[in-house]
């Protein structure tokens, strides 16, 4: 996978997220977000600092272009960027590092991808849901919203990963 194609794919994921944020409303309890996949798809050669910068910019772009709260996605995606390597290492072992310049999620099994995206989505929504609620909603509501959104988003990201990053 070339650099150019990776950038285009990342931009496409951001655009898809903007569309989801603006036009798809499922429930109070369910929010879909594809941005964790943008971070997980960064090659191993891109270090954590670059991942954090990309996370901030991607989050800012999505919040700016959608009707979201400016800074919400950035603040939620930064922990995902800093936990990217621990998540991938926990799910795929040291094996994914063999392919330094290709998206690590492209070399994981479907189950591995789901676990990785689920972990990343859980971290993302942990921040997202609680910051969005700003102390106005009960804990059970926040936890339900976080769990449902994480599972649904992880499932969607696993599905998209199959077409975007898995090399045949």
């Amino acid at each position, binding site marked *: 996978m070339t650099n150019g194609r990776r950038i285009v794919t990342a931009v496409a994921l951001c655009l898809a997220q903007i569309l989801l944020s603006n036009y798809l409303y499922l429930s109070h309890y369910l929010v879909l977000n594809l941005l964790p996949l943008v971070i997980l798809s960064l090659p191993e050669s891109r270090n954590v600092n670059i991942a954090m910068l990309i996370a901030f910019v991607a989050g800012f772009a999505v919040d700016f272009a959608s009707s979201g709260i400016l*800074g919400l996605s950035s603040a939620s995606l930064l922990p995902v960027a800093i936990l990217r390597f621990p998540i991938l290492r926990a799910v795929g072992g040291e094996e994914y590092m063999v392919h330094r310049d290709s998206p690590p999620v492209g070399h994981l099994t479907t189950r591995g991808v789901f676990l990785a995206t689920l972990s990343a989505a859980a971290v993302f929504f942990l921040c997202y849901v609680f*910051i969005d609620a*700003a*102390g106005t909603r009960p804990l059970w509501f926040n936890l339900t919203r976080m769990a449902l959104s994480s599972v649904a988003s992880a499932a969607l990201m696993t599905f998209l990963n199959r077409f975007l990053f898995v090399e045949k």
Partner: protein
Amino acid sequence: MAKGRSTSGILLSAAIFILLEVAAVALLHSSSQLQSIWLNRASHHLIGWICGTSDNIRSYFNLRERNHQLEEENAILSEQIRNYREMQAQDSARSSFCAPAEGFTYIFAKTAKISIGSQHNHVVLNKGYADGVSERCGIITNQGVIGVIDAVDRNYSYGRTLMNPNTSVSVKVDDSEIAGPMVWDGKSTNRALMRGVPLFQKLHEGDTVRTSGYSSIFPAGIPVGTVEGSTTRNGATQDVEIKLFQDFSAVDYVVIVRNEDREEIDAIEKRGMANDKR
């Protein structure tokens, strides 16, 4: 790659993370009122917690100093309470002698030492000639006669108490003309004897005994005790037993009575005695 990263690399990443998070939170703060209120509230909670914790830590390390301060404060307060009690006791003693007898001066004093266990008991008072005390001044309380001053120093004076065979006080019984010298019975701390009362004089138990004023030492009318009974002595006179109002085991504050005319009285007494001898 995270593995094998240097400390400076980790610190740089942490700094970038914090910087970007702060930027994101700043964006949140400025773009949404709800999030702004929440962040402000969280900030106030955090500041409160930091201040509270730091205050607790500071208080913990200041405990030794604080304990020392409290000990000093406690000592000062104890001293103030002691002074207050002393003043109260002095006021109480003064209030009992608000109207000194004519020709007498009252000097309030505190007992520095008093003996009650020997046959020749004495008292040491905290007033001396610097305060106007002189020899042969009387010592009284609001409950009766204590004794007579025998020796005087600058700030202290020494007196014989009534519990001393050498002390004799002239007393008389209320509503009668019976008078005589009162001396200690030699046994108890609150009993005395009035000697030399003629047998025909009838006394009633409970009659009050007061100083007679026939000497230049004590003013007349100071209540001393009550008649308790009498015993015949040598078939000629009777000894009247007196229960004293003052218990000598509980003497604290006293009044020294000084007769202002005593020198004049003594002088004329001497002249009269000299004339008698001629």
